[in-house]
Every structure is written in C-alpha cells, then in structure tokens.
C-alpha cells in the first residue's frame, strides 16, 4: 500500500460523510424543515452540553464493541456478521448472573463480564467450527445464529426471567450496575471499550500473532505456504471477535439497559460491520466512527423534538455513508483512477 493510498483511506470516508450529510439536508428540506436548524439541533443534541455528551458516549459504547468485533474478524478474512447474536448471548448470560446468582457488587460485575465474553466467544465458535471443519459460508451461519440468539433472548424475557406482566426481565440490582464514568451519563463501559480498542490495535499491528492473523486475511494461500497455522487463526478470529461482542453485550446490560427487552441489541451487529468498513478495518478509527454515528443518533432525537424531522434520517445518512465510502474506496483503487491522478501530478510538476 503506497502513501497516496493511505491518504485516500481518510479522504474517502470524510468525503462520503460530507456528501451523505448534504443529501440528508436535501431530504430534510424536502420534508419541509430547515436543514440549518436541523443540523444545529443535531449538533446540540449530541455535543451541546455535558449531559448530552455523556449520552453520546453511552450510545457509542455498544457500537464500539460490535465495530471492534467486525474489525478483528475481517482482518483475518472472516466475515463475522454475527456480532448481534454474540452481543445478545453475552447479555443473556450477564442477565442471568446479575439477577439470579447470589453475588452482587464488583464480584458480580466481573463474573457477568467474563461470562458475557465467554458466551459470545462460544456462540461465535459454532460458526468458527463450521467454517474451519466444514468449509461453510460463515456469513449465512452467523446471520442465522443472530436470529436464533434474538429468539432465545425472547424466551428469556417472555418466559424464563419474565418480571410480572410486562415482557421484560427483572432489572439488574443497583449494586451490580456499572459505576458512572466521570459523573457523565456514560458508565465505565465506555473507557473499557476504548481500552479494548487499543488492545485490539496493539495486537493486530504490533505482535507477531497479529501480523500472522492479518497475513491469513490478506492471502490465505501465501500464509499457508509460509507455515502459518491458518485454521487456528481463522478459528481464533471467530472466538475473539465473538468475545468482544459478548463483552459489549454484558456491559450494555449492566451499564445502560439493565433489563432484556424486545429490541435489545437490534441492529448493532450490522452497524458494527458498517462502521468497521467505513474505518477501513482500523480499530482506533473504528472507535471514532462509532462515536460519530452515536452522536448522529443521539442528536437526531433532539432534532426530531425540535423540528419534527424523523430520527430515521440519521439511519439514512449512516447508510449513505457506507454506500459511498465502500464504493469510493473501490474507485480510488481502479487503475483508470490512479492514472488520472498520476497524470495530473506530472503536469503539476
């Protein structure tokens, strides 16, 4: 990868975001609201005061985990689309321990978090085994497992751990809830997410295992010829990425949602995939992208209240960013495009 290329890795997503926001503004105008007002409320809602900033961080936390989950797996060439299912399995285990086990407080939190990560890892391991030993398409398997996990969660909140007449589980007891982060509305799950991102970054780019894992992702045949244990790395990428998502699910339950309820974790898996792709599979960039999209969502609620523009505009903008940035990324790699670029440069010289 040459220098110009790495420049494109930043320029393309930024340009995609700008274009997507412009289209978003056109849609808002078409709905009869003022785009400038809407954008102002969007910004205020997301970053306007400390309280909103905390909400943004809080919303970003689960997205960071599923983004890292996607980053890690894709670096090894594994399309784990099951972040959502792994996230949910992690939260189910955490819910059981937090509400049923005879421990509370810090010990319970640690237990929940470990169980969540293990659960997410094992759930992903199902797909990993089928991929490594049966050569099966991991995308379909992981997506099917998402549906199974979501339905299993449904059983938990409508039956097994149902709390009274409402289809939801009982709440995590006060002592087992995560402490707040710097007095913000976000909990310590947010800094944990950032730390996990840094660890993933360090592992992928500064350790030999990480190098080998990326080598498997870039060219499996070459990695095999070089004597890397390809199967081990493939399987590991499933388990670790699943564990990251499961950890996120456990923390989301203990910190923010407190109960399992219909819609818990819905869409987080695919959101994570989108954000990882926009971030070009870079874990630290992934954190930034996740915070950005969380801000967009938090801000859009304020925007809806103030201007009447529906919050789903933010989903459209997010979707447009992914559509443009992936296409843009492919475009700058085209030989025709490179030639165009080079010629211009030569003229300039």
């Amino acid at each position, binding site marked *: 990868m040459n220098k110009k290329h790495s420049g494109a890795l930043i320029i393309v997503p930024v340009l995609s975001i700008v274009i997507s926001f412009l289209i978003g503004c056109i849609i808002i105008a078409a709905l009869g609201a003022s785009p400038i007002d809407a954008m102002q409320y969007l910004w205020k809602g997301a970053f306007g005061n400390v309280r909103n900033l905390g909400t943004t961080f809080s919303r970003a936390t689960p997205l960071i985990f599923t983004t890292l989950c996607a980053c890690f797996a894709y670096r090894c060439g594994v399309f784990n*689309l099951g972040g959502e299912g792994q996230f949910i399995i992690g939260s189910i285990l955490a819910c059981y321990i937090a509400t049923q086990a005879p421990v509370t407080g810090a010990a319970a939190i640690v237990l929940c978090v470990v169980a969540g990560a293990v659960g997410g890892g094992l759930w992903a391991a199902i797909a990993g085994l089928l991929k490594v030993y049966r050569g099966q398409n991991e995308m379909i398997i992981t997506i*099917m497992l998402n549906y199974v996990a979501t339905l299993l969660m449904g059983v938990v909140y409508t039956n097994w751990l149902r709390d009274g007449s409402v289809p939801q589980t009982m709440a995590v007891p006060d002592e087992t809830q995560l402490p707040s982060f710097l007095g913000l509305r976000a909990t310590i799950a947010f800094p944990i997410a950032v730390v996990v991102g840094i660890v993933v970054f360090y592992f992928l780019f500064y350790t030999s295992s990480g190098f080998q894992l990326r080598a498997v992702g870039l060219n499996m045949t070459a990695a095999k010829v070089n004597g890397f244990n390809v199967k081990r790395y493939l399987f590991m990428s499933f388990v670790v990425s699943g564990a990251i998502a499961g950890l996120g699910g456990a923390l989301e339950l203990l910190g923010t949602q407190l109960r399992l309820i219909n819609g818990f974790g819905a869409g987080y898996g695919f959101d994570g995939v989108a954000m990882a792709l926009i971030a070009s599979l870079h874990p630290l960039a992934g954190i930034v992208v996740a915070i950005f999209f969380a801000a967009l969502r938090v801000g859009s609620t304020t925007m809806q209240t103030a201007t009447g523009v529906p919050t789903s505009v933010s989903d459209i903008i997010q979707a447009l960013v992914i559509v443009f940035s992936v296409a843009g990324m492919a475009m700058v790699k085209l030989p025709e495009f490179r030639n165009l670029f080079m010629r211009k440069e030569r003229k300039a010289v």
Partner: protein
Amino acid sequence: MGSFITNLILASIRMASPLIFLSLAELYSQRAGLVNIGIEGIAAIGSLTGFMVSLISGNPLLGVLAGALAGILVNMIFAYATITLCAEQIVYGMAINIFAPALAAFAYRVYFGSGSELVQANLMVTLKGLLGIKSDSFLVNLFLDQTPMVYFAYILVIVTAVYFRRTKSGLNYKAVGEYPKAAATIGINVIGVKYLSCVICGALAGIGGAYLTTCYSKTYVDGNVAGRGFIALAAVIFGRWSSGGVLIACLFFGFCDALQIRLQLINNTLPYQFFQMIPYVATIVVLALIGAKKAGPKASGQPYRKEER
C-alpha cells in the same frame, strides 16, 4: 391430524414461493459471477414498495411490478459499485443490506407517520377466488387456492432451467460466471451480461419482497423479510446452483417455515420462540451437513477487469 398435514403442505407451498423468487434472484446473480448478499435488503425495499403501491392503487399486481422496479433500482447501485468500480461484492452486498432497509423504514415513517396503528392493504386474490370455485377439497386448495405469484414462481423455475441448460444465450450467460475472459474472447459482452444479471436479480428479489406484503401479510413491518434473503443464499448452495435443486431447497425451507407456524398454533407449553427458530436452525444444519463441496460458478465473487491480461 389430517387437517394439520394438509394445512402444513398448503402452507409449505405458500412459504416456499418468496424463497423461490429470492433464490432465483441469487442464482441469476451468481451465474454471472456476482455474489450478492444484499438481496435481503433489496427484498425489504421491494416489500415496502409493493405494499405502498398496492395500498394506493388498490391493485396488488401493480404493487408487485413496482416492487420489481424498486428492486432493480437498488440493485443498480450494487451493479455499478461491483461491476464498474470493482468493489468487493460481499462488502458491497452488506452495504446494500444496511442501506435498503434503512430507506424502507424511513419511507414508511415519512408516509405513514410514526403512529402504532398498522395500515392494511389488499391481498392478491387466489385463482380459486378469481374463478369463483366453491369446493374446499385438498387438491382444489393445493392447485387452485394459490395467488398468481405462486404459479409464476414455479413457471420461473422451469424457464430458468430451460434457459441455462438448453439455450445458447443461457450457456453464454453461464460462461460469464465460469470464465469471463474466455467468454470475452468469443465475443460475449461480459460487462453487459453482468449488468443484465443485476437487473434480473434486482427484479426477482424485489418481487420476492413484494410477495410478502401483497400475497402473504396485509401489513408492512420493518424486518418482515426476516432473513429470507440469507436463507435464499443457503438455498442456492444447497441446491447446487441449479434451478431444480434450488426449488427443492426452497420447498424444504418453506416447509420448515410452515411447520414452525403450525406448531406454534397447536402448542401451548413451549415458548413460541423455539418454533420460530426452526427455519434458522434448519439452515445451519443443512449447511453443516452438505459440507464445502465447491460446485458454484468458478469466477463467482471475483471482479472482472477488461484490461487485465
């Protein structure tokens, strides 16, 4: 018990139909070397468009046509990005899966507001209703109590089989998916065929989505495609990339879906979610059993660049 089984068979046929459209969509795409995992998203758009047009016009058939058109439009984004810009197909399919349902959800919110009241459209009339037949025997219900879309699905399976096996054009089409460079040297317009495949794929995926709101359920809800686009991907693998195989796979998955609904109705001890898991678990089990014998088009998933020699 007798009515349980006959109802199960009837429901299997109904539930297989949307899967047949979606699987054939994927088949046409993969036969031209394009793995499109975005059909789930395209079906969502088709589903919403079909619902809205059939609601406004009062004609479900128009809804299906509109769904096909919307599917084509969305799939043209995929086509441009993967064929012309050579974007990775899997990645772009995912992008479509995120973009298209978001668009559908947004359009629904804007048009119907965010009220919780569900708007209902007319369902397509079955052939039995059209002909005014009163009989309620099993065979009459099996062959005549189906919407025109069901017959269309089965006709499409036959047409596809004949096209790929018996016609020169079909063989040329397959050549693009097997070995595009060789196809180009004998004068086949590789890029053209790939774009054509995206038009067919988009239309069929849109129809598959529209089926859900014009023939199956009177309402549109977000996520009503419920993974059928991905099950269709599995059906293409399971069916070994032939339309006959795909049909069998779809009937099997349709049966799982029907079984799930029937079991929910007669059971009240187990939580219903366990039955809802059946189609998804069946897909995993089927894929695990058939293993990884590669039988698909050889150039599937690979970008085609003209100037590469």
